[in-house]
């Protein structure tokens, strides 16, 4: 249908609304983080003066004393390690489910689904007790393990959906063309599977990065406290001021890279999130 000027205008409004809806909190956080401490209560959406004090206070004290650096390192480290292990385990499992015939396929998938619907709170109590007994309380491993458990269903589902789309006959074609099984796998299958694996990795990373419940339940100090947990226990400049500015600054530091990341890989993320969602 031909587009009238009115149609364009309406669509522009619709799109603008969606964009504004999505961006308000982000812009707001950036705005607060850039406000000088005195201006925090001026209730303005856009700051009238810009100051980087809040950011400075985040990193004051270096690695040991800054309220933020250690948690940041914890977050990044734990998320990366979990992602790596999760992807490896999930890939094996997804490969088996997508390619091989065996009883119990559906049980595993159903079980994974059940775990995804599981309330994590129900595992927090026992884990708390177990970890204290095993010495895993307040350690990286203490978080990596539950993250693994709860990210595996996600990774498995995404990978199974992607792996099902791969034309596996190519492997045989490569062998007919003279490749060894290993070469066929690495030169043909791996490149085809790479996008799916990458997507699953992104989703798992975001999941770990985002977790709050386990982070505050199974940690108690900088040793393994991740950023979300640390944020909830931030103290301000003095015990009487609310740490709004520093929280905002920390939030921005932790959010902007993710946003850029999400922007770059948006197609993959969308594909992963909807993988297998509603197969016809």
């Amino acid at each position, binding site marked *: 249908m031909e587009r009238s000027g009115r149609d364009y205008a309406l669509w522009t409004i619709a799109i603008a609304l969606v964009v504004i809806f999505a961006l308000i909190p*982000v812009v707001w956080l950036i705005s607060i983080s850039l406000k000088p401490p005195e201006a925090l209560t001026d209730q303005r959406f856009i700051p009238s003066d810009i100051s980087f004090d809040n950011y400075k206070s985040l990193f004051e004290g270096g690695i040991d004393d800054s309220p933020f650096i250690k948690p940041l390192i914890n977050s990044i480290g734990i998320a990366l390690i979990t992602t790596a292990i999760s992807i490896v385990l999930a890939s*094996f499992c997804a490969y088996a489910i997508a390619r091989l015939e065996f009883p119990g396929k559906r049980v595993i998938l159903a079980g994974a689904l059940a*775990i995804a*619907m599981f*309330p994590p709170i129900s595992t927090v109590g026992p884990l708390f007790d177990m970890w204290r007994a095993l010495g895993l309380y307040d350690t990286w491993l203490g978080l990596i393990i539950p993250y693994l458990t709860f990210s*595996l269903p996600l990774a498995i589902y995404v990978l199974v*959906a992607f792996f099902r789309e791969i034309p596996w006959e190519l492997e045989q074609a490569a062998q007919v063309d003279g490749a060894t099984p290993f070469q066929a796998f690495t030169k043909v299958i791996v490149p085809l599977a790479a996008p799916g694996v990458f997507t699953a990795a992104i989703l798992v990373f975001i999941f770990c990065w985002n977790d709050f*419940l386990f982070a505050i339940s199974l940690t108690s100090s900088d040793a393994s406290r991740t950023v979300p947990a640390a944020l909830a226990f931030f103290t301000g400049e003095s015990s009487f001021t609310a740490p709004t500015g520093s929280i905002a600054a920390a939030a921005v530091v932790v959010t902007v890279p*993710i946003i850029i990341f999400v922007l770059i890989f948006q197609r993959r993320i969308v594909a992963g999130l909807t993988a297998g969602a509603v197969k016809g």
Partner: protein
Amino acid sequence: MKSERTRSERKLAWMLCAPAVLAMLLVTAYPIAYAIVLSLQDVDLRFPDEGGFVGLSNYSAVLSSDLWWTDIFNTVFIMLISVSIELVLGMAIALVMHRAIFGRGVVRTSVLIPYGIITVVAAFAWQFAFSPETGFINNLPLISDEMDWFGGRFSSFAVIILAEVWKTTPFMALLLLAGLVTIDGQLYEAARVDGATAWQRFTRITLPLMKPAILVALLFRTLDAFRVFDTIFVMTRGALDTESVSILGYNQLISRLNLGLGSAVSVLIFLCVFLIAFVFVRGFGAKVEEGRPGG
């Protein structure tokens, strides 16, 4: 021999799946079993010398407590309202993403931003926005300058629900979009020729054909919503009777270190979640065969 091959294929398959399956069971099957055990005992870590098997008395304590029922109400209240709003908003956004003649990339990008932001971070952002001292919301026209959002129960709920809706509507939109694209465009043309208005096309073609997608989306979002924790914790810590059942569990387990009671709460939450899933799959016929988890 064919059966040799199938057998070795099966062995290989099991070997490949074993690590993942073990990892998943480790932190779910065992803890839930352990939680059930704990819930039947009086285990309070502040009084480690007391304790012992107490049967179902933890459960009766929980189920007869007003706090539990208030929290159930809170949780269900937040769940129903936020999921309803998310469904409508998500549908609208999905339609925009599907039919937009330009700017699809922009919309898709914007829609992923709430997904990429840490829930706690978003909760802080909204909390600051609505806080009477630092927030800009009170500055807006039509809103009283002195409105104390976090001073009242239902105004707190409003902000909590807003933050939840903001965070998860995009995901809902994506799930619904996946369903939208499966509808053959020619059906709309046929309907146009048959005389249907845009609204009629939406209600008689789009919605009925999207029923499976909508059910799956609703199922996952409802389950997620029932487990609401991060947002409430950050905004009110559950004060003013805004506590959710998950926060109750956390308070008992981690703050009060009363593992017995806390575990009872956990098990009850687990049963509620199971019930919701059951209602959706059996009652509404949600097809989760290939549905997706998490998010």
